[in-house]
């Protein structure tokens, strides 16, 4: 078994543009799912609306492609009604942080046992490149033609503050790290949030001076700074440069969570004669 076995071959080719980073993130997530040894019939993928949210449609398991921003609310219903199912949510920055912001916060607060993978391309890709809550200040989009003037969200900080048990951030460049983070998220009980910064050449790169896809991926790599390094810099009193993505495992803790599986029944009762 590999990640490849989790795809619906009859749905290919997919709708993603040439050079899109979403496929990388889906591959990494499915590789981690595969390593978990989960059965397909016990796994459900849920999503909202947007490019990232098309992912469950390409996966062979039961999958629920829902309304814009609501994936976590739907996934909460699935998981609470049947905790035996492993539930993974694919989402994007617009879906999760704008229209779905409230559901995201409350998913983290409940610390419900889901793994949420956010493909953050810093733009609304599906609708043609409008500014999102994570579009960096100064960046150009079709709704910020003179440069974005708003302050972007730090989704990981939000997830940590709201109570998620596991939080990590990587980029589409860091495929090995991302796969490991996804696995750690799947293993962690409670709400796991994995943010993956991805390139969107069609809607973001084109407007923001990334002539080649590789330029954008290189930008993501060059602007990543390890959590451990940031911690060291803060300790040494150095200034952490702005416009960097802090990558690595940002939170791992063991808060009480919702959606626990039923305890496995043992064959023999304690004290029972063999």
């Amino acid at each position, binding site marked *: 078994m590999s990640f490849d076995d989790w795809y*619906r071959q009859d*749905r290919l080719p997919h709708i993603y543009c040439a050079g899109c980073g979403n496929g990388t993130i889906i591959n990494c997530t499915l590789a981690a799912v595969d390593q978990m040894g989960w059965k*397909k*019939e*016990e796994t*459900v993928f*849920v999503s909202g609306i947007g490019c990232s949210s098309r992912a*469950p*449609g390409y996966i*062979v*398991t*039961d*999958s*629920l*492609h*829902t*309304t814009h921003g*609501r994936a976590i*609310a*739907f*996934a*909460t*219903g*699935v*998981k*609470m*009604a*049947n905790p*035996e*199912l492993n539930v993974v949510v694919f989402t994007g920055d617009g879906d999760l942080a704008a229209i779905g912001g*409230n*559901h995201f*916060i*409350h998913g983290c607060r409940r610390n419900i046992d889901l793994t949420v993978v956010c493909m953050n391309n810093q733009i609304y890709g599906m609708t043609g490149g409008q500014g999102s809550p994570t579009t960096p200040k100064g960046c150009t989009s079709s709704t910020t033609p003179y440069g974005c003037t708003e302050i972007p969200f730090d989704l990981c900080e939000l997830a940590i503050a709201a109570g998620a048990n596991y939080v990590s951030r990587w980029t589409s460049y860091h495929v090995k790290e991302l796969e490991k983070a996804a696995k750690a998220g799947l293993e962690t009980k409670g709400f796991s949030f994995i943010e993956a910064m991805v390139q969107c050449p069609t809607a973001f790169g084109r407007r923001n001076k990334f002539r080649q896809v590789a330029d954008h991926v290189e930008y993501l790599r060059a602007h990543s700074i390890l959590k451990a390094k940031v911690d060291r810099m803060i300790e040494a009193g150095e200034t952490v440069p702005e416009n960097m993505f802090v990558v690595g495992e940002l939170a791992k803790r063991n808060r009480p969570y919702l959606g626990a599986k039923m305890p496995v029944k043992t064959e023999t009762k304690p004290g029972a004669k063999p």
Partner: protein
Amino acid sequence: MTRTEFWQGNTACAEGALAAGCNFFGGYPITPSTEVAEHMAAKLPKKNGVFIQMEDEIASMASIIGASWTGARAMTATSGPGFSLMMENIGFAAMTETPCVVVNVQRGGPSTGQPTMAAQGDMMQARFGSHGDYSIIALCPATVQEMYELTAKAFNLADTYRVPVFLMADEIVGHMREKIIIPDSVERVPRRELARGTLPFQAGEDLVPGFPQFGKGYGVHVTGLTHDERGYPAATNPKLHADLVQRLVDKIELAPDEMADYDIVNPDAEDVFIAYGAPVRTVQQVMHDRPGKEIGFLRIRTVWPFPEKALSLFKNARRFLVPEMNLGQMAREFERHTKVPVISIPKLGGELHTPDELVAVLEARR
């Protein structure tokens, strides 16, 4: 052995749901429906069911749809402002053919309106509130007994037709206390499972596909996009979209006789009242005060799909009188189905029509 209780309508609604095997409730507090959620919060955990208070009504509706796909009998309860928020995912439930029950204990609107007063102002919203063409089923209780019975029935209809079913109650019926007889058990019609080897959205003659429950190995893809019989998105195929939406409407609209639920009193009368929900009670008082065969009465419980045939059963009808706690929402619908004059008796403000108000209209028209 049946037993007799003295219950509030909202309690009866929750108990009717539990009797029907409801095992998932996702809700958000709102007057005047909150007692339904409170009762479910107290009872469901003791029955191995799930009660979850969501962050808003959008999420409540989402959670019951998610739960329903795992096979749960799922319900939420709300009132006007929450009902408005639910519309987005009600459309999703219609498009994905997800069985679920939504209780709307109606209050005065628009907007925040009259939280503690009754109204029937959401009757058209129940039918047409979400965008696009689709059909739903709506039931209207007029007594505490019917709060119990129609809620239980709503689950069977939802599972049979794979559609959201609305219990369109109102503040009067929801908060009123009266005698109720609890049956030993209520009928439970199981959700028909998808036959193996059949495509997940392939429907037979009844136009309702079998249900591919999550976790059973069907590997079904469920999407709010226009989808083919495999469940795969096909949003730019004109014929496929037309056929799908037509089927979603036809599975309900072509079967009104199967789900029709109404009473007919004095079918030979010339003056005929039509009522649903709380105004039924005022009409009953008028008929009680004026015994005889002079006044006819069509009492409707299944309001959507509208039981068109019921109107033609009053052969001598010269006028239909329709008291409603809105500005004549259903009267317009009745008018569409009959050549007999329909006289709307609207009432706003949150109080029932008095018997005198109905009698005044009755006599003025004679």
